[in-house]
Protein backbone atom coordinates (compact mmCIF):
# COMPACT_ATOMS: atom_id res chain seq x y z
CA UNK A 1 0.00 0.00 0.00
CA UNK A 2 1.16 3.55 -0.76
CA UNK A 3 0.49 5.83 2.19
CA UNK A 4 0.40 9.60 1.98
CA UNK A 5 0.35 12.12 4.85
CA UNK A 6 -1.72 13.33 6.60
CA UNK A 7 -2.73 9.81 7.55
CA UNK A 8 -6.20 8.82 8.63
CA UNK A 9 -8.26 5.66 9.23
CA UNK A 10 -6.41 3.78 6.45
CA UNK A 11 -3.62 2.96 8.93
CA UNK A 12 -6.06 0.93 11.03
CA UNK A 13 -6.33 -1.61 8.21
CA UNK A 14 -2.59 -2.28 8.04
CA UNK A 15 -1.26 -5.53 9.50
CA UNK A 16 2.16 -6.18 11.08
CA UNK A 17 4.40 -7.48 8.30
CA UNK A 18 2.76 -5.45 5.50
CA UNK A 19 5.21 -3.65 3.22
CA UNK A 20 4.19 -0.08 2.44
CA UNK A 21 5.61 3.14 1.03
CA UNK A 22 5.18 6.52 2.69
CA UNK A 23 5.01 9.89 0.95
CA UNK A 24 4.36 13.40 2.22
CA UNK A 25 5.46 15.43 5.20
CA UNK A 26 7.10 13.80 8.25
CA UNK A 27 8.75 15.36 11.30
CA UNK A 28 12.02 14.08 12.76
CA UNK A 29 12.27 13.80 16.52
CA UNK A 30 14.75 12.18 18.89
CA UNK A 31 14.95 12.20 22.70
CA UNK A 32 15.53 15.95 23.16
CA UNK A 33 12.76 17.02 20.77
CA UNK A 34 10.26 14.75 22.54
CA UNK A 35 11.14 16.28 25.91
CA UNK A 36 10.85 19.82 24.51
CA UNK A 37 7.48 19.02 22.87
CA UNK A 38 6.17 17.67 26.19
CA UNK A 39 7.26 20.89 27.93
CA UNK A 40 6.45 23.50 25.27
CA UNK A 41 3.86 21.88 23.01
CA UNK A 42 3.96 20.38 19.52
CA UNK A 43 5.09 23.00 16.97
CA UNK A 44 3.19 21.41 14.04
CA UNK A 45 -0.35 20.08 13.50
CA UNK A 46 -0.25 16.59 15.03
CA UNK A 47 -3.50 15.35 13.40
CA UNK A 48 -2.58 12.53 11.04
CA UNK A 49 1.09 13.45 11.40
CA UNK A 50 4.07 11.09 11.18
CA UNK A 51 7.12 11.18 13.50
CA UNK A 52 10.46 9.92 12.12
CA UNK A 53 13.06 8.83 14.70
CA UNK A 54 16.08 10.29 12.96
CA UNK A 55 19.01 12.65 13.47
CA UNK A 56 19.89 13.67 9.91
CA UNK A 57 23.07 15.16 8.49
CA UNK A 58 22.04 18.45 6.84
CA UNK A 59 24.42 20.56 4.77
CA UNK A 60 23.45 23.89 3.12
CA UNK A 61 19.72 23.17 3.35
CA UNK A 62 20.07 19.70 1.84
CA UNK A 63 19.66 16.30 3.46
CA UNK A 64 22.92 14.36 3.09
CA UNK A 65 22.17 11.31 5.24
CA UNK A 66 19.01 10.47 7.17
CA UNK A 67 18.71 6.86 8.31
CA UNK A 68 16.55 5.86 11.30
CA UNK A 69 17.75 5.84 14.90
CA UNK A 70 16.81 3.28 17.58
CA UNK A 71 13.13 3.86 18.36
CA UNK A 72 13.19 2.13 21.75
CA UNK A 73 14.81 5.21 23.30
CA UNK A 74 11.47 6.98 22.74
CA UNK A 75 9.36 4.21 24.34
CA UNK A 76 8.32 6.28 27.34
CA UNK A 77 8.12 9.59 25.43
CA UNK A 78 5.63 8.82 22.64
CA UNK A 79 2.21 8.55 24.36
CA UNK A 80 1.38 12.28 24.19
CA UNK A 81 1.99 12.37 20.42
CA UNK A 82 -0.38 9.46 19.77
CA UNK A 83 -3.00 11.07 22.04
CA UNK A 84 -2.78 14.31 20.06
CA UNK A 85 -3.48 12.50 16.79
CA UNK A 86 -0.12 11.30 15.45
CA UNK A 87 -0.90 8.26 13.29
CA UNK A 88 2.52 6.73 12.67
CA UNK A 89 5.97 6.49 14.23
CA UNK A 90 8.87 5.57 11.90
CA UNK A 91 12.20 4.22 13.12
CA UNK A 92 14.31 1.11 13.59
CA UNK A 93 14.37 -1.78 16.02
CA UNK A 94 10.76 -1.61 17.21
CA UNK A 95 9.17 -0.20 20.38
CA UNK A 96 7.89 -1.71 23.62
CA UNK A 97 4.55 -3.15 24.66
CA UNK A 98 3.60 0.23 26.18
CA UNK A 99 3.72 1.91 22.74
CA UNK A 100 1.97 -1.05 21.09
CA UNK A 101 -0.89 -0.55 23.57
CA UNK A 102 -0.97 3.21 23.00
CA UNK A 103 -1.18 2.65 19.24
CA UNK A 104 -4.21 0.35 19.54
CA UNK A 105 -7.07 1.68 17.44
CA UNK A 106 -5.07 4.81 16.63
CA UNK A 107 -1.89 4.24 14.63
CA UNK A 108 1.07 2.13 13.59
CA UNK A 109 4.83 1.77 13.97
CA UNK A 110 6.67 1.60 10.65
CA UNK A 111 10.19 0.15 10.44
CA UNK A 112 12.79 1.55 8.07
CA UNK A 113 16.03 -0.32 7.34
CA UNK A 114 18.78 0.78 9.74
CA UNK A 115 21.88 2.27 8.16
CA UNK A 116 20.15 3.15 4.88
CA UNK A 117 20.99 6.83 5.20
CA UNK A 118 21.87 7.49 1.56
CA UNK A 119 18.76 5.71 0.24
CA UNK A 120 16.59 7.71 2.64
CA UNK A 121 18.21 11.02 1.68
CA UNK A 122 17.59 10.30 -2.00
CA UNK A 123 13.83 10.17 -1.29
CA UNK A 124 13.67 13.36 0.81
CA UNK A 125 13.25 17.10 0.42
CA UNK A 126 13.83 19.46 3.32
CA UNK A 127 10.80 21.68 4.02
CA UNK A 128 11.52 23.39 7.33
CA UNK A 129 12.79 23.14 10.88
CA UNK A 130 11.56 23.62 14.46
CA UNK A 131 13.64 23.71 17.65
CA UNK A 132 16.83 24.39 15.69
CA UNK A 133 18.49 25.40 18.98
CA UNK A 134 18.63 21.67 19.88
CA UNK A 135 21.34 21.14 17.26
CA UNK A 136 21.36 19.28 13.97
CA UNK A 137 20.74 15.78 15.28
CA UNK A 138 18.04 16.70 17.84
CA UNK A 139 16.08 19.43 16.00
CA UNK A 140 12.64 18.73 14.48
CA UNK A 141 13.08 18.76 10.69
CA UNK A 142 10.04 18.86 8.41
CA UNK A 143 10.86 16.54 5.53
CA UNK A 144 8.85 15.59 2.47
CA UNK A 145 9.17 11.90 1.59
CA UNK A 146 8.82 10.33 -1.82
CA UNK A 147 7.77 6.68 -1.41
CA UNK A 148 10.05 5.60 1.43
CA UNK A 149 9.85 1.76 1.63
CA UNK A 150 8.73 0.62 5.10
CA UNK A 151 7.47 -2.44 6.96
CA UNK A 152 4.56 -2.32 9.42
CA UNK A 153 6.30 -3.32 12.67
CA UNK A 154 3.37 -2.75 15.04
CA UNK A 155 -0.21 -2.55 13.78
CA UNK A 156 -3.23 -0.80 15.28
CA UNK A 157 -4.52 -4.11 16.67
CA UNK A 158 -1.41 -4.41 18.88
CA UNK A 159 0.41 -7.05 16.83
CA UNK A 160 4.18 -6.56 17.12
CA UNK A 161 6.46 -8.21 14.56
CA UNK A 162 9.58 -7.61 16.66
CA UNK A 163 7.97 -9.19 19.73
CA UNK A 164 7.14 -12.33 17.74
CA UNK A 165 10.68 -12.62 16.35
CA UNK A 166 12.14 -12.08 19.81
CA UNK A 167 9.90 -14.73 21.38
CA UNK A 168 10.96 -17.23 18.73
CA UNK A 169 14.66 -16.40 19.25
CA UNK A 170 14.27 -16.95 23.00
CA UNK A 171 12.70 -20.35 22.46
CA UNK A 172 15.37 -21.39 19.91
CA UNK A 173 18.05 -20.41 22.44
CA UNK A 174 16.39 -22.38 25.26
CA UNK A 175 15.99 -25.43 23.03
CA UNK A 176 19.65 -25.38 22.08
CA UNK A 177 21.36 -24.54 25.35
CA UNK A 178 19.14 -25.02 28.36
CA UNK A 179 18.36 -28.68 27.84
CA UNK A 180 22.08 -29.41 28.30
CA UNK A 181 22.08 -27.75 31.71
CA UNK A 182 19.68 -30.37 33.07
CA UNK A 183 22.08 -33.19 32.27
CA UNK A 184 24.00 -34.60 35.26
CA UNK A 185 27.63 -33.53 35.40
Amino acid at each position, binding site marked *: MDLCTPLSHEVLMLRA*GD*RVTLSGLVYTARDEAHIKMIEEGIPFDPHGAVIYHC*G*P*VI*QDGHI*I*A*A*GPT*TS*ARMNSLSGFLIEKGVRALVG*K*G*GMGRQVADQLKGRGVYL*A*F*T*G*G*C*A*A*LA*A*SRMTLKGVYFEDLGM*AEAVWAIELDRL*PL*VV*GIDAAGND*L*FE*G*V*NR*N*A*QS*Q*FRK*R*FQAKKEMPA
Partner: protein
Amino acid sequence: MIVSSDPALIDAITNATLEAFRQAQITLPPDVITALTNARERETSEIAKGELSNIIANLDMARSRSVPICQDTGVPIVYVTIPPDIPFTRDIYEAISAGVRQATKEIPLRPNVVDPLTRENSGDNTGVGMPAIHAKPGDRCTITVLPKGAGAENMSRIAMLLPSERDQIVKFVVETMLLAGGRPCPPVILGVGIGSTFDGVAALAKEALLGPIDCMTPFEEELLAAVNSLGIGPMGLGGNTTALAVKVRTGGCHTASLPVAVNVQCWACRRATVEVSY
Protein backbone atom coordinates in the same frame (compact mmCIF):
# COMPACT_ATOMS: atom_id res chain seq x y z
CA MET B 1 66.73 6.13 7.43
CA ILE B 2 63.78 8.47 7.10
CA VAL B 3 63.06 10.98 9.84
CA SER B 4 59.48 10.45 10.99
CA SER B 5 58.90 14.18 11.44
CA ASP B 6 59.72 14.65 7.73
CA PRO B 7 56.84 16.85 6.47
CA ALA B 8 56.46 14.75 3.30
CA LEU B 9 56.03 11.55 5.33
CA ILE B 10 53.59 13.25 7.74
CA ASP B 11 51.53 14.49 4.78
CA ALA B 12 51.57 11.05 3.18
CA ILE B 13 50.28 9.41 6.37
CA THR B 14 47.59 12.10 6.79
CA ASN B 15 46.48 11.68 3.17
CA ALA B 16 46.42 7.88 3.41
CA THR B 17 44.27 8.13 6.55
CA LEU B 18 41.84 10.52 4.84
CA GLU B 19 41.70 8.29 1.74
CA ALA B 20 41.11 5.13 3.80
CA PHE B 21 38.20 6.80 5.64
CA ARG B 22 36.74 8.06 2.36
CA GLN B 23 36.82 4.54 0.89
CA ALA B 24 35.46 2.89 4.03
CA GLN B 25 32.59 5.35 4.53
CA ILE B 26 31.33 5.38 0.93
CA THR B 27 31.85 1.79 -0.29
CA LEU B 28 31.85 -1.59 1.45
CA PRO B 29 34.56 -4.20 0.74
CA PRO B 30 33.64 -6.65 -2.09
CA ASP B 31 33.39 -9.66 0.26
CA VAL B 32 30.75 -7.87 2.36
CA ILE B 33 28.74 -6.80 -0.71
CA THR B 34 28.83 -10.39 -2.00
CA ALA B 35 27.68 -11.72 1.39
CA LEU B 36 24.75 -9.28 1.46
CA THR B 37 23.77 -10.16 -2.12
CA ASN B 38 23.96 -13.90 -1.39
CA ALA B 39 21.89 -13.41 1.75
CA ARG B 40 19.14 -11.75 -0.28
CA GLU B 41 19.06 -14.78 -2.60
CA ARG B 42 18.86 -17.19 0.35
CA GLU B 43 16.12 -15.44 2.28
CA THR B 44 12.64 -16.87 1.87
CA SER B 45 10.61 -14.19 3.65
CA GLU B 46 9.57 -11.18 1.59
CA ILE B 47 10.26 -8.86 4.53
CA ALA B 48 13.85 -10.10 4.93
CA LYS B 49 14.42 -9.88 1.16
CA GLY B 50 13.02 -6.34 1.21
CA GLU B 51 15.37 -5.23 4.00
CA LEU B 52 18.38 -6.63 2.14
CA SER B 53 17.20 -4.98 -1.08
CA ASN B 54 17.07 -1.64 0.76
CA ILE B 55 20.60 -2.22 2.04
CA ILE B 56 21.90 -3.02 -1.45
CA ALA B 57 20.06 -0.03 -2.97
CA ASN B 58 21.56 2.13 -0.21
CA LEU B 59 25.07 0.97 -1.13
CA ASP B 60 24.47 1.94 -4.78
CA MET B 61 23.10 5.30 -3.69
CA ALA B 62 26.04 6.06 -1.37
CA ARG B 63 28.51 5.23 -4.14
CA SER B 64 26.75 7.25 -6.85
CA ARG B 65 26.28 10.29 -4.58
CA SER B 66 29.69 9.90 -2.88
CA VAL B 67 28.09 10.16 0.55
CA PRO B 68 28.55 8.03 3.69
CA ILE B 69 26.64 4.74 3.73
CA CYS B 70 25.20 5.47 7.20
CA GLN B 71 24.73 8.70 9.14
CA ASP B 72 26.46 7.07 12.12
CA THR B 73 29.94 7.37 10.65
CA GLY B 74 31.31 5.82 13.83
CA VAL B 75 34.41 6.45 15.90
CA PRO B 76 37.80 6.26 14.15
CA ILE B 77 39.71 3.02 14.71
CA VAL B 78 43.03 2.83 12.89
CA TYR B 79 45.55 0.00 12.43
CA VAL B 80 48.96 1.11 11.17
CA THR B 81 51.94 -0.99 10.12
CA ILE B 82 55.38 0.56 10.52
CA PRO B 83 58.16 -0.68 8.19
CA PRO B 84 61.79 -0.94 9.37
CA ASP B 85 62.89 2.32 7.71
CA ILE B 86 60.36 4.54 9.56
CA PRO B 87 61.09 5.31 13.22
CA PHE B 88 58.05 4.69 15.41
CA THR B 89 57.33 8.08 17.00
CA ARG B 90 54.50 10.28 18.24
CA ASP B 91 54.58 12.13 14.88
CA ILE B 92 52.91 9.13 13.25
CA TYR B 93 50.01 9.32 15.71
CA GLU B 94 49.65 13.04 15.10
CA ALA B 95 49.64 12.56 11.34
CA ILE B 96 46.81 10.01 11.68
CA SER B 97 44.82 12.38 13.94
CA ALA B 98 45.23 15.12 11.33
CA GLY B 99 43.82 12.70 8.74
CA VAL B 100 40.78 12.05 10.96
CA ARG B 101 40.14 15.80 11.37
CA GLN B 102 40.38 16.31 7.63
CA ALA B 103 38.10 13.34 6.93
CA THR B 104 35.51 14.75 9.36
CA LYS B 105 35.44 18.04 7.46
CA GLU B 106 35.76 16.79 3.90
CA ILE B 107 33.75 13.55 3.58
CA PRO B 108 31.95 14.78 5.87
CA LEU B 109 31.72 12.59 8.98
CA ARG B 110 29.31 13.20 11.84
CA PRO B 111 31.32 14.47 14.83
CA ASN B 112 30.73 11.59 17.25
CA VAL B 113 33.59 11.77 19.74
CA VAL B 114 32.74 13.26 23.15
CA ASP B 115 34.32 13.39 26.59
CA PRO B 116 32.90 10.33 28.41
CA LEU B 117 31.78 12.29 31.49
CA THR B 118 31.10 15.88 30.43
CA ARG B 119 29.78 14.58 27.05
CA GLU B 120 31.37 17.61 25.42
CA ASN B 121 31.87 17.03 21.68
CA SER B 122 35.32 17.84 20.27
CA GLY B 123 33.70 18.52 16.89
CA ASP B 124 36.45 16.78 14.91
CA ASN B 125 36.24 13.12 15.97
CA THR B 126 39.44 13.26 18.04
CA GLY B 127 39.82 13.08 21.81
CA VAL B 128 41.96 11.42 24.47
CA GLY B 129 43.00 8.11 22.92
CA MET B 130 40.84 8.88 19.87
CA PRO B 131 41.44 7.96 17.10
CA ALA B 132 42.14 4.55 18.63
CA ILE B 133 45.47 3.71 16.98
CA HIS B 134 46.93 0.20 16.95
CA ALA B 135 50.50 0.04 15.62
CA LYS B 136 52.39 -3.07 14.52
CA PRO B 137 55.64 -3.66 12.65
CA GLY B 138 55.27 -4.55 8.97
CA ASP B 139 57.04 -4.68 5.61
CA ARG B 140 55.21 -1.64 4.25
CA CYS B 141 53.55 1.39 5.78
CA THR B 142 49.79 0.84 5.60
CA ILE B 143 46.78 2.52 7.17
CA THR B 144 43.71 0.35 7.81
CA VAL B 145 40.58 2.00 9.17
CA LEU B 146 37.56 0.39 10.82
CA PRO B 147 35.03 3.15 11.63
CA LYS B 148 32.71 1.69 14.26
CA GLY B 149 29.08 2.79 14.81
CA ALA B 150 27.56 2.79 18.29
CA GLY B 151 24.44 0.68 17.67
CA ALA B 152 26.47 -2.48 17.17
CA GLU B 153 29.44 -1.60 19.41
CA ASN B 154 27.04 -1.13 22.36
CA MET B 155 25.86 -4.74 22.04
CA SER B 156 29.39 -6.20 22.44
CA ARG B 157 30.22 -8.36 25.49
CA ILE B 158 33.15 -9.86 27.34
CA ALA B 159 33.31 -12.86 29.72
CA MET B 160 36.06 -14.33 31.89
CA LEU B 161 35.06 -17.99 31.58
CA LEU B 162 36.70 -20.78 33.52
CA PRO B 163 39.10 -23.13 31.69
CA SER B 164 36.55 -25.93 32.29
CA GLU B 165 33.87 -23.95 30.44
CA ARG B 166 35.15 -24.31 26.88
CA ASP B 167 31.73 -25.69 25.89
CA GLN B 168 30.20 -22.38 27.04
CA ILE B 169 31.92 -20.35 24.30
CA VAL B 170 29.25 -21.08 21.69
CA LYS B 171 26.50 -20.30 24.20
CA PHE B 172 28.10 -16.97 25.12
CA VAL B 173 28.38 -15.94 21.45
CA VAL B 174 24.77 -16.90 20.66
CA GLU B 175 23.51 -15.30 23.88
CA THR B 176 25.23 -12.04 22.88
CA MET B 177 23.19 -12.02 19.67
CA LEU B 178 19.99 -13.00 21.52
CA LEU B 179 20.39 -10.04 23.89
CA ALA B 180 21.19 -7.71 20.98
CA GLY B 181 18.17 -8.71 18.87
CA GLY B 182 17.48 -6.23 16.06
CA ARG B 183 19.32 -3.36 17.75
CA PRO B 184 22.81 -3.73 16.18
CA CYS B 185 21.37 -3.52 12.62
CA PRO B 186 21.61 -7.17 11.55
CA PRO B 187 22.70 -9.03 9.51
CA VAL B 188 25.79 -8.56 11.67
CA ILE B 189 29.33 -9.83 11.58
CA LEU B 190 30.59 -11.12 14.93
CA GLY B 191 34.26 -10.73 15.83
CA VAL B 192 35.10 -13.26 18.53
CA GLY B 193 38.25 -13.11 20.64
CA ILE B 194 39.26 -16.16 22.67
CA GLY B 195 42.19 -16.20 25.10
CA SER B 196 44.76 -13.48 25.85
CA THR B 197 43.91 -11.20 28.79
CA PHE B 198 40.90 -9.11 29.87
CA ASP B 199 41.96 -6.20 27.64
CA GLY B 200 43.67 -8.32 24.99
CA VAL B 201 40.63 -10.46 24.22
CA ALA B 202 38.56 -7.40 23.30
CA ALA B 203 41.32 -6.27 20.94
CA LEU B 204 41.36 -9.76 19.36
CA ALA B 205 37.59 -9.62 18.85
CA LYS B 206 37.89 -6.29 17.07
CA GLU B 207 40.86 -7.43 14.95
CA ALA B 208 38.83 -10.47 13.90
CA LEU B 209 36.52 -8.03 12.09
CA LEU B 210 39.38 -7.06 9.78
CA GLY B 211 39.49 -10.51 8.17
CA PRO B 212 37.67 -11.38 4.94
CA ILE B 213 34.24 -12.86 5.57
CA ASP B 214 34.19 -15.13 2.52
CA CYS B 215 36.30 -17.79 4.21
CA MET B 216 35.51 -19.31 7.58
CA THR B 217 36.95 -22.21 9.59
CA PRO B 218 34.66 -25.12 10.56
CA PHE B 219 34.43 -23.64 14.10
CA GLU B 220 33.43 -20.24 12.69
CA GLU B 221 30.83 -21.96 10.48
CA GLU B 222 29.46 -23.77 13.53
CA LEU B 223 29.15 -20.49 15.45
CA LEU B 224 27.46 -18.85 12.44
CA ALA B 225 24.90 -21.65 12.12
CA ALA B 226 24.12 -21.42 15.85
CA VAL B 227 23.65 -17.63 15.67
CA ASN B 228 21.46 -17.87 12.56
CA SER B 229 19.23 -20.49 14.21
CA LEU B 230 17.84 -17.62 16.34
CA GLY B 231 15.91 -16.35 13.31
CA ILE B 232 16.31 -12.67 14.29
CA GLY B 233 16.94 -11.85 10.63
CA PRO B 234 17.71 -8.57 8.87
CA MET B 235 16.83 -5.62 11.17
CA GLY B 236 15.23 -7.97 13.72
CA LEU B 237 12.20 -8.51 11.46
CA GLY B 238 12.83 -12.26 11.19
CA GLY B 239 14.71 -14.34 8.63
CA ASN B 240 17.56 -16.75 7.98
CA THR B 241 20.34 -14.17 8.01
CA THR B 242 20.98 -12.86 11.50
CA ALA B 243 24.75 -12.85 10.88
CA LEU B 244 26.72 -12.81 7.62
CA ALA B 245 29.82 -14.27 9.24
CA VAL B 246 31.57 -15.07 12.51
CA LYS B 247 35.32 -14.49 12.66
CA VAL B 248 37.49 -15.84 15.49
CA ARG B 249 40.94 -14.77 16.71
CA THR B 250 42.73 -16.58 19.50
CA GLY B 251 45.66 -15.67 21.76
CA GLY B 252 47.67 -17.45 24.45
CA CYS B 253 46.18 -17.11 27.92
CA HIS B 254 46.81 -17.97 31.56
CA THR B 255 46.23 -21.63 32.41
CA ALA B 256 43.56 -20.52 34.89
CA SER B 257 41.75 -18.18 32.44
CA LEU B 258 39.46 -18.37 29.43
CA PRO B 259 38.62 -14.81 28.33
CA VAL B 260 36.00 -14.54 25.55
CA ALA B 261 34.87 -11.35 23.84
CA VAL B 262 32.28 -10.71 21.13
CA ASN B 263 32.53 -7.49 19.14
CA VAL B 264 29.32 -6.90 17.21
CA GLN B 265 29.58 -5.25 13.79
CA CYS B 266 26.50 -4.00 11.90
CA TRP B 267 26.00 -4.94 8.24
CA ALA B 268 27.94 -1.81 7.29
CA CYS B 269 31.31 -3.50 7.91
CA ARG B 270 33.34 -0.50 6.82
CA ARG B 271 37.03 -1.26 6.48
CA ALA B 272 39.66 -0.06 4.04
CA THR B 273 43.45 -0.21 3.74
CA VAL B 274 45.62 2.36 1.99
CA GLU B 275 49.38 2.06 1.52
CA VAL B 276 51.38 5.14 2.45
CA SER B 277 53.61 6.16 -0.46
CA TYR B 278 56.62 8.12 0.77
